[in-house]
């Protein structure tokens, strides 16, 4: 049987000829009819370029310099845009990464869906056809959603609409480029369930691009692992993930967050005590409602919840960025003094001033507290950079010269500078690749052992929290619905929402 899609030695380069290594370097891949194939890799591994090349969506700066791609037995590499347009939408569909930007904000769902249907060969799609297209992707009330604008829909619904548009033409192949990496874990689960269901029903093949091994393990029949533009391993999912051959696959597998094992930490001396915290934003939105928790000295408390659950508001209240409406935050029984609680934000690309050198950034809390002379501060910055595993010459560089992981290390060094009692980590690794994520989590653990500060770790990802926090609290709609030692909560979750979160962790499906 000829495979639906066969890629042999595909090479794609960016920029002028003969410069740099190719983004995709001799990649081989086959997808049979009805099969789900996952391509796993870090950012920069070339997996997105591969997906775009197979959909004929490469930017003008990219060139295919080698290889053969056949789709349904016909060559499609080197097709002109006009020929691609006949294929795309009808035979090959594409779902982009970010549902937030992929829909036109000025057009209703109806107009955009009708356009997609017209392109697949229905000249004037009727109401039935439109509603059916949305019904197929599990949207409960299609008639209502059709009249909405994208901003009136949640991220999960937007991705479903995009999926509905992609699947409207009953394509033979669906290419999904990180379709759920911008979504919460629970929403991710429903969207991926849907992809799997529709694919099975229509016999559509799926090429699933993801950085998450767990997602690949749960959903794919076969898995290809990419790094530095090359496919280093390819085979049935059980084989690749069960007994990996390539060193890189083993590294990826090792980097997946593992829940802490061993006995629950003995309750220590309480350090940070939060009582009956309530925060109402102007306009009446209740972000946090009667939240109480205790953070032990040198302990780690994980705070888990979906986006909008109020966990970031708690981080802001604890760090003093936001005044609580009522309730108290006490550190050692007293209000928090400047410098005692530090903060590491989610996005290392936004949390460092692009115009400052790394040295100045790290020294900022020291300058604010007027600690030491200039020379002492410089020496302290050098030691802090060493602590977080960065060479001293980084101090002179700007953040733009650093990778995401390095930037997060800089942010951690800044938080460490005034030797705080508590560091609030707001999604510290969610913008990072799996391998970098594991490195940062290990670094945080090492720093805690060395300096003995407590962490308040906030994340939407239960797996990350389970890998780093001894105790955890689960938040939903502004309330803490469950809390306790991590191992206990994971073993016997009481709140239904905790069970939901637990079930949504990718990689559980096949004992990953």
């Amino acid at each position, binding site marked *: 049987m000829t495979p639906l899609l066969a890629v042999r030695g595909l090479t794609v380069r960016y920029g002028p000829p003969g410069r740099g290594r190719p983004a995709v370097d001799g990649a081989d891949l086959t997808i049979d009819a009805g099969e789900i194939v996952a391509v796993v890799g870090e950012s920069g591994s070339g997996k997105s370029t591969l997906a775009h090349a197979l959909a004929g969506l490469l930017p003008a700066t990219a060139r295919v310099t080698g290889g053969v791609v056949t789709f349904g037995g016909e060559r499609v590499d080197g097709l002109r845009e006009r020929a691609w347009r006949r294929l795309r939408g009808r035979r090959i569909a594409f779902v982009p990464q970010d549902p937030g930007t992929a829909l036109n904000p000025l057009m209703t769902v109806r107009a955009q869906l009708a356009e997609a249907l017209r392109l697949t060969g229905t000249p004037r799609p009727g109401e039935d056809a439109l509603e059916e297209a949305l019904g197929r992707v599990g949207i409960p009330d299609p008639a209502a959603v059709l009249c909405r604008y994208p901003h009136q829909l949640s991220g999960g619904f937007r991705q479903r609409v995009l999926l509905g548009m992609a699947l409207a033409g009953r394509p033979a192949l669906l290419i999904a480029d990180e379709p759920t990496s911008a979504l919460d874990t629970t929403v991710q689960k429903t969207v991926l369930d849907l992809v799997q269901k529709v694919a099975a029903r229509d016999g559509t093949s799926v090429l699933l691009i993801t950085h998450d091994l767990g997602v690949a393990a749960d959903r794919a029949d076969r898995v290809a692992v990419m790094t530095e533009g090359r496919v280093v391993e390819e085979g049935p999912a059980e084989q690749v993930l069960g007994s990996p051959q390539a060193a890189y696959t083993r590294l990826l597998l090792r980097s997946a967050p593992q829940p802490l094992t061993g006995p629950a930490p003995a309750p220590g001396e309480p350090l940070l005590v939060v009582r009956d915290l309530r925060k109402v934003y102007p306009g009446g939105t209740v972000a946090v409602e009667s939240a109480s928790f205790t953070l032990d000295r040198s302990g780690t408390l994980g705070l888990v919840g979906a986006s909008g659950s109020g966990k970031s508001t708690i981080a802001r209240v604890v760090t003093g960025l936001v005044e609580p409406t009522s309730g108290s935050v006490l550190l050692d029984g007293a209000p928090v003094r400047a410098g005692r609680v*530090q*903060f590491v934000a989610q996005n290392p690309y936004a949390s460092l001033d692009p*115009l400052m050198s790394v040295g100045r950034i790290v020294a900022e809390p020291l300058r604010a507290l007027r600690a030491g002379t200039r020379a002492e501060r410089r020496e302290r910055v050098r030691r802090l950079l060493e602590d977080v595993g960065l060479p001293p010459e980084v101090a002179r560089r700007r953040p733009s010269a650093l990778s995401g992981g390095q930037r997060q290390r800089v942010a951690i060094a800044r938080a460490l500078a005034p030797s705080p009692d508590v560091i609030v980590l707001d999604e510290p690794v969610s913008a990072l690749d799996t391998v970098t994520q594991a490195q940062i989590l290990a670094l945080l653990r090492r720093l805690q052992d060395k300096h003995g500060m407590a962490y308040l770790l906030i994340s939407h990802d239960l797996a990350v929290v389970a890998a780093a926090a001894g105790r955890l609290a689960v938040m939903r709609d502004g309330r803490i619905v469950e809390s306790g030692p991590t191992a206990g909560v994971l073993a016997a979750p009481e709140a239904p929402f905790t069970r939901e979160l637990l079930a949504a962790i990718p990689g559980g499906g096949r004992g990953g």
Partner: protein
Amino acid sequence: MTFVRRLGVVPSALVLLAATAAALAPALFSPADPLRGDLTQRLLPPGATHPFGTDELGRDVFARVVHGSAPSLQAAVIAVGVAVLAGSVIGLVAGTARGRLDGLVMRAVEVLLAVPSFLLILVVVAVLGPGTREVALAVGVSAAAVFSRVMRAEVVRVRGSGYVEAAAVCGTGRATVLLTHVLPNAAGPVAALATLELGNAVLTVAAVSFLGFGAPPPAPEWGSLVAAGRPFLASAWWLTTVPGLVIAAVALAVNHLGHVLRTRSETR
């Protein structure tokens, strides 16, 4: 397109260089006295001894144009300086304070924007009296409103960024955050607008002094040179055309260089 743009860089730079040099050391270009006329040499067309001809009092037009560049350019630079400074301060205050002060200040700025800028300039000049510096101030005040809006928008954007939040957690004082984080990061678009405004200011200053509000008569200034040549438009075209061309050339050169600099900094 980029080729054409690059083609214009050298001539624009030369024009600007010549104008600046003329403003700094006019005697280098023209040894003739711009104020002293020779009545036997009245209204001579451009020629070997008088490259731009002479006016009705026998004064060398080339000397007058060269000596006029100092007040004209100075006024434009001062105008932009006033606009950037005043606009930035207003925008910084409004963007930082938010709330009622922000609303009050920005509504006032909108009223300023609603008045036609030329009318506003004339009102300010009428209050301050004529003179090069007064004209510069008036042009600056009328342009400040746009700067304050851009600055406020940038301040609001930067204030919400992660590094400003991080600085607040570090315990950095509000004033320090403003000066070390907000201002430098908000300055880019304001600087870009300033280059655009400079060409505009050259034109506006010339226009106001054309109307007679600039330096008093014997002193040469580009706009007033054009105005002074008007009665002789039919018989001595060079009196109006030459200063007019100089004004146009300088405005074009400034705009073009500003545009190139902006696109360069955007693509970087």
